[in-house]
């Protein structure tokens, strides 16, 4: 069995979104920016539950929903893998993005940034992600292992 691809996940209880959504978002994000590639094996549910110190059912829920969205696939007896051609549910993603965009615009307005400046920031972030994705194959595996961090 191939060993699980390392992926940095950390959860913050008390954050704006429930823990299962935090796990889902970080795995989807890993796929989107190339830290995870199709075929990569994810940590087992029990391993991740112990590493993050969260209930095993929470991890199961995240994995099940990611599977339904086509981001991961479980292969009987050998674990959970990033799916071929993985991409998230578009309608759902747009809904979340609209909410995030609204927060972003509010913050920008509060800081006195105009729309143009905000759009430039978004474009810069997109360019940076593209760059990271391009060099993703080299940097993968060298990322420092982060332990889960959080304390109330």
């Amino acid at each position: 069995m191939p060993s699980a691809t390392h992926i940095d996940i950390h959860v913050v209880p008390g954050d704006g979104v429930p823990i299962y959504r935090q796990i889902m978002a970080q795995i989807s994000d890993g796929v989107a920016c190339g830290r995870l590639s199709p075929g990569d094996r994810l940590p087992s549910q029990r391993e991740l539950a112990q590493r993050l110190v969260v209930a095993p059912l929470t991890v199961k829920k995240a994995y099940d929903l990611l599977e339904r969205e086509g981001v991961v696939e479980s292969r009987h007896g050998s674990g959970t893998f990033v799916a071929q051609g993985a991409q998230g549910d578009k309608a759902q993603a747009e809904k979340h993005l609209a909410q995030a965009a609204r927060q972003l615009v509010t913050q920008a307005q509060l800081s006195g940034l105009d729309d143009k400046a905000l759009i430039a920031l978004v474009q810069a972030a997109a360019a940076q992600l593209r760059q990271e994705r391009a060099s993703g194959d080299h940097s993968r595996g060298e990322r420092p292992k982060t332990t889960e961090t959080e304390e109330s």
Partner: protein
Amino acid sequence: MSHISVRDLEFAYGDGREALGGLSLHVEPGEVVGLLGRNGAGKTTLLHCLLGLLKPSAGEVEIFGLDPRAYPLEVKSQLGHVSEHDLLPPGRRVRELLAFHADVFPDWDGALCDELVGRFGLNTASRIRQLSKGQVRQVSLVCAVAHRPKLLLLDEPAGGLDPAARREVLQLAIELLVEGGTTVLFSSHHMHDVERLAQRVVMLHEGRVLLDDTLDDLREGCSLAVLPGDLAPRLEAMPRCLRVRPQGDVVHAAMAAPPSEAEQLLNGELSRTDVRCSSLNLEDFFVELVG
């Protein structure tokens, strides 16, 4: 068969003070339920009734389908219990306590016991009075889980512990869940711990169940609006408004709807366009409901 089945439970203390006033609760095998409520809400009294330590004034309590007062041995052999208020005999050595529990429980798993003692770094020759508060709690935990119970009742299992010791308690609970699908009912004031461990949340208030829902539905299906104080009466009349809490000139309205839905509802109902709702984490939710 439910692991915990409580119907219309009432309990009053000798002085007539009512601690539980008609409480019903069912917990199925494998569920992990966080029991929340302010001090005095009835959490410990409920757990003591489940353990058979208190005799209900009215109503029924069944653990594994049995009355814990009529069948104490049958129930206790499959049950583990840890409380913040556990009193272990101060003069006893750790190994004497462990040996006592190993004798009492036919299913005592000596290997698991040794593993936990090793992991916690407990010196079994120490007397209880020589241990720190965290170490005493670890001894309680080993005694509560080494017979691999089907059901764990935990009353503030990490209460009074420092963050590192609290995390160890949580880690042990997660490990038991990963291994065996243990049913857990635990009370806690640490909302972050509840978010890590619980799938379902039961909130007690004045001896009754105020709210019983899955953690994720609570987190995603409730929201908060902050509105001018004079709207309080109209908000209180709204069916999906869970609580209205005055805060100076404004009121906080906890809504049983996700933020966008609650905004629509409130804007429509109050003929406004400026109502904004935000999501709530468990701690905020607790304060909005029973604070």
